[in-house]
């Protein structure tokens, strides 16, 4: 804690906090062009210089930590003049195309020129030809670029793609794809978000609207369980068509990071929906007939509560396989960890010094976790160990140790981790049987995890601890929940959480899996007549617009999600919806007496940690210093520990032949992302180079994937981001991948070239 003074005001800085950070927190204004709070100070703009008493010259406030009792002046005549001169230099040869520039109206350069009253440019430099670069979803215009480097830093420090860099050349400097002809990255579009001028823009949005025309609707991203905060920006579709349309997505880029699916996959709304009374009547009849409701986790907490209420009233079976698996995993985990929920949040991951990731293809399962890991790697040089059968090259700059294990041997891996991470108490708790079955030689041989690899992890862990590491996180993913031995895995995870320094995080696989798992009482078996909600059933309610009755998509609904941070976050209606909603059905059935679905927000089950807060009272913003004020966090309750011993480790399953994985390609999460016009693509079998070579396939070949008596005909595409294996996604609803992957995310298939 350092006490000092800014403009006479006494302020206190925490350790390592810079002058600018303190000033921002205290609401004192220091102008900047290149400062971005989520990355390291960039120091290219030099606008944030301040005067310090007793120091000759100006001191850069963005990177200088405060010294005790320093007296700092943020504004003076000299400072103003120099800042003004800097702005003049920024204006040298900056094209005067504000008229068409997409950024006009929210452009930092415009704002600062106005602020420093630069209304004319008195010198110029010889100009040069700088063509606009066209990079898939993005465009880069070097002549507009002021080289603040925000994009480069965010790509390197937060995203982890490290896909762009500056081609140094003084006045000729520009942004170029790193080590490549053209940009090939995960298309998070964060460079567009952080660009203070119009140099980086979204090609789709280009020239279609101006900043000031768009209405901002704060919402939560509906694609994955990170439920990132974002704004849908809407405007009428065209002069002829007054219907509002989402033009783009923006985010609070200073504090938060969106992935490409969130940024470019925004128009997944159900456009066709009308109040079709006939269909509604049929739906009510179907509900009267049905004994099962099948649904996915692409619903809000309130809808989940409605489904639960229907179940309580009519005894429906609620079937949601993925949430059910997660629910059971969480329950078993709780019984051994003693906590009703996992504790770490994405912020904790960012602060972790040692992270072990297991059972998740994180770059497509949950990019937010990947970004958090990148931040921890870059900021704390954390050790990141990834256990997975599929090598993900995207994680290469992030992961410090990759442990490739055999498909299906997660139990072995987790057991070995328990062995090295936990103390003797844990082993005692695990029980004699388990301990007896723990034969490291056998496990190592079968899982292909070398003992020396485990030792190396231990060595790294010790090294980290010597260097004063404090936070350790074990992140577990969907592979484990769907694993045939999920129950045991959950218990082992519980042990790790309880008996080691490691905190365990269980990534919810889908948008609101955590919410559904907490709110709904899920069933295993389907009945005779089922109603599917965003899922095929005998009668289908669908937000995709292909069912028997239309439902609103998540950008047409208000409500809350329970996200990966265990936070209940609100989302709002971006686009109007004409048709019926679930609450209408519930009202018709006599289950609901509320007019709006959001009236249920305060009725979410308190025993699960929800709070009795009205929807309209939920915050949805970030404070000046980056504090997230969105909704509220679920309360973690104490759970009675189970006294049962953990079952012995079973013989590890063997997967021979061709094994494929179930995950989505980058930028896809579900049929909803695939519905968005920018992301729309055909489902393919994505395979690594080695996989293709092994099977003698080429990109573009058609293959038949066979399992039991199911055959899927599909095209093959090479995915350069994975170094081994192949995967199939579920985002293309025309391809029935469901039947291939009954439980586990890996499956043995036969692949034949057609």
């Amino acid at each position, binding site marked *: 804690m350092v006490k000092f003074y800014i403009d006479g005001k006494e302020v206190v800085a925490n350790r390592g906090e810079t002058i600018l950070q303190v000033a921002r927190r205290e609401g004192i204004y220091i102008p900047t062009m290149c400062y971005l709070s989520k990355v390291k100070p960039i120091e290219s703009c030099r606008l944030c210089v301040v005067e310090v008493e007793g120091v000759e010259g100006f001191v850069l406030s963005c990177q200088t930590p405060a010294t005790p009792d320093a007296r700092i002046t943020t504004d003076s005549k000299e400072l103003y003049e120099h800042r003004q001169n800097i702005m003049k230099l920024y204006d040298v040869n900056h094209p005067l195309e504000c008229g068409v520039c997409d950024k006009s109206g929210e452009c930092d350069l415009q704002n600062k020129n106005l602020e420093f009253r630069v209304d004319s440019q008195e010198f110029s430099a010889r100009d040069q030809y700088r063509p606009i670069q066209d990079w898939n979803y993005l465009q880069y215009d070097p002549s507009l670029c002021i080289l603040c480097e925000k994009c480069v830093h965010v790509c390197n420090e937060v995203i982890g793609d490290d896909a762009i860099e500056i081609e140094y050349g003084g006045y*000729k400097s520009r942004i170029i794809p790193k080590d490549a002809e053209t940009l090939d990255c995960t298309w998070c579009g964060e460079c567009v978000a952080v660009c203070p001028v119009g140099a980086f823009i979204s090609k789709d949005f280009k020239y279609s609207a101006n900043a000031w025309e768009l209405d901002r609707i704060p919402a939560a991203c509906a694609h994955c369980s990170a439920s990132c905060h974002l704004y849908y920006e809407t405007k009428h579709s065209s002069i002829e068509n007054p219907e509002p349309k989402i033009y783009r997505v923006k985010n609070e880029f200073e504090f938060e990071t969106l992935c490409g699916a969130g940024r470019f996959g925004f128009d997944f709304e159900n456009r066709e929906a009308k109040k079709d009374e006939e269909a509604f009547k049929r739906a009510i009849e179907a509900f009267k007939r049905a004994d099962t409701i099948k649904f996915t986790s692409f619903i809000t907490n309130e809808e989940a509560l409605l489904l639960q209420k229907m179940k309580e009233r009519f005894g429906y079976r609620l079937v949601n396989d993925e949430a059910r698996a997660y629910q059971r995993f969480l329950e078993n985990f709780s019984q051994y960890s003693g906590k009703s929920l996992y504790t770490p949040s994405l912020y904790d991951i960012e602060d972790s010094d040692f992270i072990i990731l297991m059972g998740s293809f994180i770059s497509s399962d949950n990019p937010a976790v990947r970004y958090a890991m990148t931040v921890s790697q870059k900021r704390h040089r954390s050790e990141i160990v990834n256990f997975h059968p599929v090598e993900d090259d995207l994680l290469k700059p992030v992961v410090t140790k990759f442990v490739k294990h055999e498909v299906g041997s997660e139990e072995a891996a987790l057991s070995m981790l328990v062995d090295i991470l936990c103390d003797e108490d844990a082993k005692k708790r695990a029980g004699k049987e388990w301990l007896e079955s723990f034969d490291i030689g056998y496990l190592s041989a079968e899982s292909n995890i070398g003992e020396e690899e485990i030792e190396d992890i231990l060595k790294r862990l010790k090294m980290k601890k010597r260097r004063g590491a404090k936070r350790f996180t074990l992140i577990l993913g969907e592979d484990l929940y769907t694993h045939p031995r999920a129950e045991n895995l959950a218990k082992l995870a519980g042990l790790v959480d309880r008996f080691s320094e490691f905190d365990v995080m269980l990534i919810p696989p889908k948008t609101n899996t955590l919410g559904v798992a907490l709110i709904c009482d899920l069933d295993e078996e389907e009945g005779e007549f089922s109603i599917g909600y965003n899922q095929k059933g005998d009668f289908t309610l669908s937000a995709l617009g292909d069912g028997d009755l239309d439902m609103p998509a998540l950008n047409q609904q208000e409500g809350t999600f329970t996200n990966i941070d265990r936070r209940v976050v609100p989302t709002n209606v971006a686009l109007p919806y004409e048709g019926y909603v679930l609450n209408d059905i519930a009202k018709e059935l006599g289950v609901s007496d509320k007019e709006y679905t959001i009236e249920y927000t305060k009725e979410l089950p308190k025993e699960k940690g929800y709070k009795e807060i009205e929807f309209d009272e939920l915050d949805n913003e970030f404070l000046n210093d980056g504090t997230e004020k969105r909704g509220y966090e679920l309360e973690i309750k104490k759970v009675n520990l189970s006294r049962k011993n953990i079952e012995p480790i079973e013989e590890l399953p063997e997967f021979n032949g061709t094994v494929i994985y179930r995950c989505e390609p980058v930028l896809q999460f579900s049929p909803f992302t695939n519905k968005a016009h920018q992301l729309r693509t055909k489902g393919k079998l994505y395979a690594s180079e080695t996989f293709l070579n092994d099977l003698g396939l080429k990109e573009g070949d058609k293959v038949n994937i066979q399992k039991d008596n199911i055959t899927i005909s599909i095209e093959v595409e090479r995915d350069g981001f994975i170094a081994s294996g192949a995967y199939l996604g579920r985002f293309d609803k025309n391809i029935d991948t469901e039947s291939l992957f009954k439980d586990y995310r890996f499956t043995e298939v036969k692949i034949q070239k057609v």
Partner: protein
Amino acid sequence: MGSKVYFSTWKDEFIDNRGKPREEWAESNYNFPVQYNADIESKAFIGWAGLALFDEDVDVIKLATEYAYQYQVYSEACGRCAPGRWGGRILYDLFDKIARGEGEWGDVEHLKEVSSTMIETSKCEIGKTVPKPLLDVLNYFEDEIRELIEQKRPSKYYNDENINYISKVTAPCMDACPSHVDIPAYIEGVRDLRFDYSVQATRKTMPLAHTCGRVCPHPCEDECRRANLDEPISIMELKRVGADFETDHGLFWLHPKEPKPLNGKKVAIVGAGPAGLTGAYYLAMEGVASDVYDELPVLGGEVAVGVPEFRMPVDKYNVDIGAVGSLEGVNFITGKRVTADDMREFEKNYDAILIATGTRISKKIRAKNEREEIRGYWPAINFLDCINLYVKYGIPAPKEILEKNNLPTDKPYVDLTGKTVVCVGGGFTSLDVVRCAVRANADKVVMLYRRDEATIIKNTTYEEYHEAVEEGVEFIFYSAVEEIITDENDNLKALKINRFELVPDPDGGRPQLKKIEGADFVMECDILVPAVSQSADLSHLPPEWEIELTSWGTIKTDGKTYMSSRKGVFAAGDCEYGPMTIVNAVGQAKRAASVMSRYVQSGEITLTDEEIMEDHLRSLKVYDKKEKIRGWMPGLPRQKGEILSVEERKHSYLEVNLGLTQEQAVAEAERCMRCYYIAMVAV
């Protein structure tokens, strides 16, 4: 010292000899490169602190234009701050406009305005200092400028292509570093969390990034401008950060650039130590293949076998060696001792030879009864070889040596249990010896040093000396062995030791050591390790080559091209200079490789302008201890990395220095002021 100049505004001096005849010119206090090369005289010198003219007939405006242009060229390494990027461009454009004869008075005003903003707000010193000589030109040569503007004609030598403008970018730290590592660049890489850039910047002039991130004596830190403000930057530690990134993520290898394709030329390199490796690396970068010979079974030379594991873990060094070996054309041949015959063969078969054999013979301490045969008399190099080969590579110590020194032979390693070890010396090697002795479980370890504590710290590093003290090494200062006392079996028994005191020289010279009479004492010991210095083993040089040697017994070169008296035979590293630091060896080998790469092509010995300038700047001195620092907040402490606890490190060979944590490294990097300077000579 000093040179006659026509005009100078360098630093604080102002000499204006305009209108005076050449004989009456005043002398400057600074050592300007008046003579650019043996046969070329320079006309003018312009740099960060002003300009100096050596001739009346200099086109100052064109000089300034070129200087501004050179800033453009060098800022291509950057362009990362708004004032520098655009300001520099405008400086050049406007000066050029005036020099072309198209200028207006308004341009002069703009130049002044842009200069002042650059001086105050640029990111690095390069942007802050470039406007200084330009402003001098504007102020002192106003008449010339007015003439050009009014007469609308180009300046005198505007289109004269015979005048060359040769420039060089440097920094105080780069200047101090024998291998001229681009220190601000790799620190910037750390600061930007772009560790790949960091290690690439290091490898531009220093392939051994891991090694020199750990065991460099860092002369750069003594000339760090930050020291004028508070404490110097921890330059060495920061080098390691980038290098560690490479290994952590398995990004092998991050070379500074794509090596050129092999051009068919091949060079023999004798010795695979730092100098040999460096030579091979930069030759391969230039497309010259090389065979690297070493007598040891392992690569790395003295650093591999001499520097102990706890200071320089061998797996890290192997990464550096791997980086060299990864280049096409580099071929290692280990376990081959090169003889004079081989050398003769080499001359026939290769296009050039680089001798980098180092100094591997421990010198004697010049005590009475000092003989190699004494059981317990164990020269430092051999002592360290025995310990480290086992610790690092698992190669057991030769039984006969263990036996000679009365050590148990049943163990493959050196076990000093129950022994008293005395080391004579006071440099890095002696510290390594005593600390290794501690780890080899010696009962008592004593270091005898002729001078005082301050000198030992100056010769080594503060950290290392204190770590040794913490580990229990006993230091006896102002002492020397007078006589070695042995028993009947020629076993070492005890040492007779003299004590000295420092007597100030009445003439004001260096204080003299004077023996204190009667203060001698005898100390019992089992093993005596002389570690005072080493000399080169040059037995493999064919006598008929008549290679000139220095009085120190090393190969004589001109210190610039590193060619020995025999054409095509180059020498670099300790065998050229005498026992010195790794970074010195690297610097020499880098230069030698550069000269050789041209020599094998053209048969001529040349230096690049860059290299000539490097030498000139070194003699001019870049670092100015008295300079005041503007624009930086003082009082930010130098970051110190964690080290292993004494208990933990005393009994293991684990690396002692854990390095900076990421937060510390970044905080440290942020203290760097990026003191780049540009200097330019007109010839």
